[in-house]
């Protein structure tokens, strides 16, 4: 055996290759630059492509939009479970996607991480300026799915907690959240300034999923960043602390659409959003998580119940 095994040489070659790659590609590390424009884009045909994030709740909303559009006579193609904004936003810009359920605050943050607006109306207004040509957002729903400072009922009772500011003065607090929480305006630095709360971050990278919930329930952390449409909040009788200073960006559900979504399709999506309440979204999510129902069934049942089918 030589000192430099074949594996070492391969690794060296890989690093060298990386260098070459990095030298060529200058601005797009994920290789997601839009390919060619969709030839069907300008012909005015009525096939719309509805996408969703790789997030079950987002897929349910996408399916609701899709079925509502089909009900209005549009042909719909479904492209669900597309990863992150880095992947699907270029597709929207290229005309390969037409409708995508989005969340106001995060979408704005993607295009302008310095934006300092904290209410939905200003977010929608700011998006009007930040979005690339050809893309627009429609009227937001009441339903939202945003970050939160959530505690157990027992911990809330013990310390008399109703708002984030009530955490001030409690020693040794930690919050389970994704690592980017540290950099957000509502992160540890933000609540220190706005509410005088000292809290440390325990990064758990499952976006408010079961690991984050488990850390809260077993007392590893006293606070967790759960998303407010998460059925686990009601199921475990958790308390979402109020945010009177509006540090946390609102994440109202709103469709991000391409130019091929005409006035009629826009009206269909507006009708859906007008009825999609916060409690509806929690209920829809609960059906998926607790009853393992398919998003197509959940969506058609909700549309029928709202008289939109």
């Amino acid at each position, binding site marked *: *055996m030589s000192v430099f095994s074949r594996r070492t040489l391969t690794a*060296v070659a890989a690093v060298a290759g990386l260098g070459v790659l990095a030298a060529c590609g200058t601005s797009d590390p994920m290789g997601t630059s839009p390919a060619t424009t969709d030839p069907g884009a300008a012909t005015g045909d009525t096939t719309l492509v509805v996408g969703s994030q790789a997030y079950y709740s987002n897929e349910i909303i996408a399916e609701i939009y899709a079925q509502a559009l089909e009900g209005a006579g549009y042909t719909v193609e479904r492209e669900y479970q597309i990863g992150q904004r880095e992947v699907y936003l270029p597709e929207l810009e290229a005309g390969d996607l037409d409708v995508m359920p989005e969340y106001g605050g995060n979408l704005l943050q993607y295009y302008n991480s310095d934006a300092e607006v904290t209410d939905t109306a200003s977010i929608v207004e700011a998006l009007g300026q930040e979005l690339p040509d050809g893309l627009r957002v429609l009227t937001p729903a009441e339903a939202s799915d945003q970050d939160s400072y959530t505690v157990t009922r027992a911990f809330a009772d013990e310390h008399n907690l109703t708002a984030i500011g009530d955490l001030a003065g409690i020693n040794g607090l930690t919050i389970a959240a*994704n*690592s980017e929480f540290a950099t957000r305006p509502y992160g540890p630095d933000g609540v220190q300034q706005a509410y005088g709360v000292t809290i440390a971050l325990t990064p758990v990278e499952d976006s408010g999923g079961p690991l984050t919930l488990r850390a809260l329930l077993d007392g590893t952390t006293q606070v967790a960043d759960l998303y407010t449409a998460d059925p686990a909040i009601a199921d475990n009788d958790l308390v979402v602390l109020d945010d009177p200073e509006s540090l946390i960006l609102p994440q109202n559900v709103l469709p991000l659409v391409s130019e091929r979504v005409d006035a009629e399709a826009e009206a269909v999506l507006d009708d859906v959003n007008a009825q999609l309440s916060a409690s509806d979204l929690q209920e829809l999510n609960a059906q998926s998580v607790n009853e393992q129902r398919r998003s197509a069934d959940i969506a058609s049942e909700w549309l029928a119940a709202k008289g939109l089918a």
Partner: protein
Amino acid sequence: MNYLLDAFAWIADPAHQAGPNGIWARLGEHLGYSVVGVLLACLVAVPAGLWVGHTGRGRGLAVGLASAARALPTLGLVTLLGLLLGIGLVGPMIAFVALALPSILAGTYAGVEAADRVAVDGARAAGMTEWQVLTRVELPLGMPLLIGGIRSAFLQVVATATLAAYVGAGGLGRFLFLGLRTQDYPQMLAASLLVVGLALVADIAFGLLQRFATPAGLRTTR
């Protein structure tokens, strides 16, 4: 802008190096997790491999287990153990041990089995006990393969130890996840480069160790 240059600049920035969240601290954690994971795996896999290699018993089982364990998806295991045991280092550490076991087990029994049968029979004929045959003949002759198994296990664990950060522990994965979540690609690439660098250094060290562990009589045969 060039991401690779940005990544090196990120690493070189003194502000990113010191402190409990600095590169040195995370590098130390990362190396520590890998060393502990592989050592724990050695405690189980080396004795088991020696026994299988020496006696020839349970070989089918060992091969089967080692192959099956290689197919375990580590992220799935980390998540599952996190749900069972809570967040923190325990879950990922068990996953790292599971990741390291197959290579070490295979390297150990293959090393013992590969010992020249003539030498083994000669040792036995000379009146050595089975324990002496194992420790004085089979183990020294099999040492290069055994260390090769540990070498390969260590590389896998170093490359995978980033997952510790998924469930609240430290290591270089902290930079990787933070970079991913905040679209800070230079930081993400910097973390990857640090993992690659750590793996390269470890591999070279193991290569030297493997060379020195090769008995003098075997060195020319390669």
